């Protein structure tokens, strides 16, 4: 198989790689905020259960979580493994990344001085207004660098989907490498991820610049 055919075949999987990436961001960014807020809930049971879940998700391999979500239903309830593995893959990624984003949000929220809440309260802002208009914009600004790190990691982590044989770019590359006994597909994959991340970094640095119109 020549290089061009390899690239074409692996490029076919790129759409699925992108699907994992974008869908995971779409679900995990808001879900992470919900988890962060639950972890700060005044009701002790809710906050401790939430924090325990976060520690499990962060303390066990993503690979295991992928296998658990994809094949777990089959072993537990004998429902057949769905043929479209995109759903379990995105579910596993979203939950896992939500746990990481939750920790980032938490540290961001904790970095906002109490005086901001007090000023808002005295001015009569509701709790929701205070969060949406005053706290959240400042939190986003603070967490942008660590969120960027996490997003760059997500690009590379999409390759984990090979553990459940989801036909994204890396899985295809690995199959070609096996059948052709060639190392070239791995190099192609490396270039793909590098370019993908260069684009991500470029966009995030633009966002960061746009957000730094004020300093603290």
């Amino acid at each position: 198989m020549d290089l061009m055919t390899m690239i074409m075949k692996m490029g076919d999987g790129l759409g699925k790689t992108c699907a994992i990436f974008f869908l995971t961001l779409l679900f995990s960014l808001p879900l992470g905020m919900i988890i962060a807020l639950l972890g700060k809930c005044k009701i002790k049971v809710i906050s401790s259960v939430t924090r325990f879940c976060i520690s499990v998700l962060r303390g066990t391999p993503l690979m295991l979580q992928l296998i658990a979500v994809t094949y777990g239903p089959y072993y537990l309830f004998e429902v057949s493994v769905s043929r479209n593995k995109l759903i379990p893959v995105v579910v596993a990624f979203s939950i896992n990344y939500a746990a990481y984003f939750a920790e980032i949000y938490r540290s961001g929220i904790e970095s906002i001085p109490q005086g901001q809440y007090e000023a808002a309260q005295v001015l009569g802002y509701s709790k929701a207004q205070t969060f949406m208009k005053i706290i959240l914009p400042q939190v986003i600004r603070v967490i942008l660098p660590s969120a960027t790190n996490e997003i760059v990691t997500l690009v590379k982590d999409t390759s984990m989907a090979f553990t459940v044989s989801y036909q994204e770019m890396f899985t295809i590359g690995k199959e070609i490498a096996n059948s052709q006994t060639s190392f070239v597909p791995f190099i192609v994959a490396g270039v793909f991820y590098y370019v993908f991340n260069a684009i991500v970094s470029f966009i995030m640095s633009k966002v960061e610049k746009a957000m730094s119109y004020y300093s603290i």
Partner: protein
Amino acid sequence: MNILKMSKVQKSFGRNHVLKDISLEVNKGEVVSIIGPSGSGKSTLLRCATLLETMDGGTLSYMGDNVCELKNGKMEYAKNLNKFRKCFGLVFQSFNLFPHWSVVKNVTDAPISVLKRDPEEVKAEAMELLRKMGLEDKAEAYPSQLSGGQKQRVSIVRALAMKPEILFFDEPTSALDPELTGEVLKVIKQLAEESMTMVIVTHEMSFARAVSDRVIFMDGGVIVEQGRPEDLFGDTKEDRTKQFLQHYQNL
């Protein structure tokens, strides 16, 4: 009618009994200064009045309306506290401006999105207030681009834009470099001349003497002495007050 009335206010943090039976009435147009040593409960009193802390006992009312009452030994606050928040403004020692908003947004957002007032009208009033405070050229600046004195003047404008009946200040100049306190004190004096009702916690004794109708000396969670500034500073009755004032020799 008195704008603010607090009586027999009690407040503890754990076993630390911070406010013991404080009673305070402020009439329309009156300027009251509160002085006292560190830890005497001055900030806690303002925080109870501005609903940032809940009181353990006593009463609090604005314009004759009770904010809270004791029921079966438990303090119960009114359901709609925003009605009372419209009555007062608070200027913090550390400004607490919103850093992600320009000066004019800091000043106009609450009147627009809390009081639901007409944005154009609010903006015009805000610019007028900023002009009065010598800040018109800072309207589009962000708080981080301002000096401490400018920040504090903006935070005074932010409070005034809500058209409060009474304005509380908690050591408005304590976070400022000495050469910047003057510009903030001047603004407060100007408000006093316009008969703004104010309660000012301060360590600036000569300012308190010049601007106040009444000065209150607090120590250990009680009001030790109060009176007209010329009496309290000139003809001090209580030994504790005398002792405290000895630290300020420039009177």
